[in-house]
């Protein structure tokens, strides 16, 4: 273990040295704390995901998840000396709890409703980042349009299975989940690595005023939060992309209609349909100007203009 810990942390390309750095770093967020929290949250997720376990066991998983979130939040508050503001912690905890419930709730309708909660909390985070237009667009598009579509499809494409007692039971594919352990391990290893990299390795990023950052700016000194300037930027620097976005939306609408179109098969027998309408002759039946044939009728001698 000593040899493992003494690996120099500068060789960050080597995964072993990254692991060593996690355990030895005097970091902003200590690596071992991140590892412990990720393990706690992974166990909680495994217990909380839909399965045939007892409801009490799943509640234990929920307690684990809440404990991990609260520990992470309190660590963050104490580390950052509360300079993030209380609204950041409120919104992010609401968003993350909602996200966990989206993943772990057995019923799809409730998952969709928790996703609406997550969307609202994310919009709050966007407002804290002075991106008001993004927050409004997120609420309108996600919570207003996409989620309505989801809820409609959930209602259309579900077959309620009611027992004799009248209570509806979950379908088998809702009540169980696949590969809980492997998926949680992969996800939380990724999460721990990302958090560690974010809090420890972001010092090498270009500063806001540097060459790389300034190269992208097109419209003067942009002040984030100015919706008017965002519109100016969109319609000058990104105008072609904006048109392409509209094209993609149109294409997807056409594609969705074509995919979901139901071919209506008429079940009534052939004989009960209306008799085949004879095509009227192109020429008049006789020389009378009142004898112009009428199309679409069974009687070819019917006149267009009744003789008065």
């Amino acid at each position, binding site marked *: 273990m000593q040899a493992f810990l003494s690996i120099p942390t500068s060789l960050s390309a080597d995964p072993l040295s990254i692991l060593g750095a996690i355990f030895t770093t005097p970091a902003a967020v200590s690596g071992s704390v991140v590892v412990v929290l990720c393990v706690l949250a992974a166990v909680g997720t495994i217990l909380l995901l839909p399965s045939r376990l007892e409801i009490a066991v799943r509640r234990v998983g929920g307690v684990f998840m809440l404990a991990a979130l609260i520990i992470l939040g309190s660590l963050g508050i104490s580390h950052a000396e509360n300079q993030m503001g209380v609204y950041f912690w409120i919104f992010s905890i609401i968003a993350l709890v909602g996200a966990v419930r*989206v993943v772990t709730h057995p019923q799809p309708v409730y998952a969709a409703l928790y996703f609406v909660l997550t969307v609202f909390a994310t919009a709050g985070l966007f407002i804290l980042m002075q991106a008001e237009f993004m927050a409004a667009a997120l609420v309108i598009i996600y919570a207003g349009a996409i989620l309505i579509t989801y809820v409609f499809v959930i209602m259309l494409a579900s077959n309620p299975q009611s027992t004799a007692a009248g209570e509806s039971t979950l379908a088998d594919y809702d009540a169980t989940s696949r590969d809980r352990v492997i998926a949680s391990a992969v996800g939380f290893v990724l999460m721990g690595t990302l958090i560690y990299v974010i809090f420890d390795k972001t010092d090498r990023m270009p500063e806001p005023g540097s060459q790389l950052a300034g190269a*992208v700016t097109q419209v003067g000194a942009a002040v984030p939060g100015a919706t008017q300037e965002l519109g100016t930027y969109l319609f000058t620097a990104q105008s072609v992309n904006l048109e392409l*976005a509209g094209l993609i939306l149109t294409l997807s609408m056409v594609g969705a209609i074509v995919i979901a179109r139901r071919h209506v098969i008429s079940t009534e027998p052939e004989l009960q349909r209306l008799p085949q309408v004879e095509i009227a002759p192109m020429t008049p039946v006789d020389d009378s100007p009142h004898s112009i044939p009428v199309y679409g009728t069974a009687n070819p001698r019917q006149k267009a203009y009744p003789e008065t």
Partner: protein
Amino acid sequence: MSELSFLQHYLAVGAIMFCIGLIGFMTRRNLIVMFLCTELMFQGVAINLVAFSQYYGNFGGQAFVIFVLVIAASEASLALALVVLLFRHRNTLDADAWKELKG
């Protein structure tokens, strides 16, 4: 350094949300919930982009979030149309009902 601290916290929230969505996409068996989890991953990416947009003080990130929303809307409509089509064929939403597509 305070600016960097702000950025780090938002990036962490986005990363956690992305990973939760990833776990949900791998574990859930209902097709609709799987697509909900991809929307969750889109949310995490959008938080990242807006955080970088605020950090660097230009609108590139926010403009990209608009395009992410466009792609998410297209994906939702097409994917849900496919889900409805698949539901009509097998009368179930189980992703394992289409196991033979693994090849």
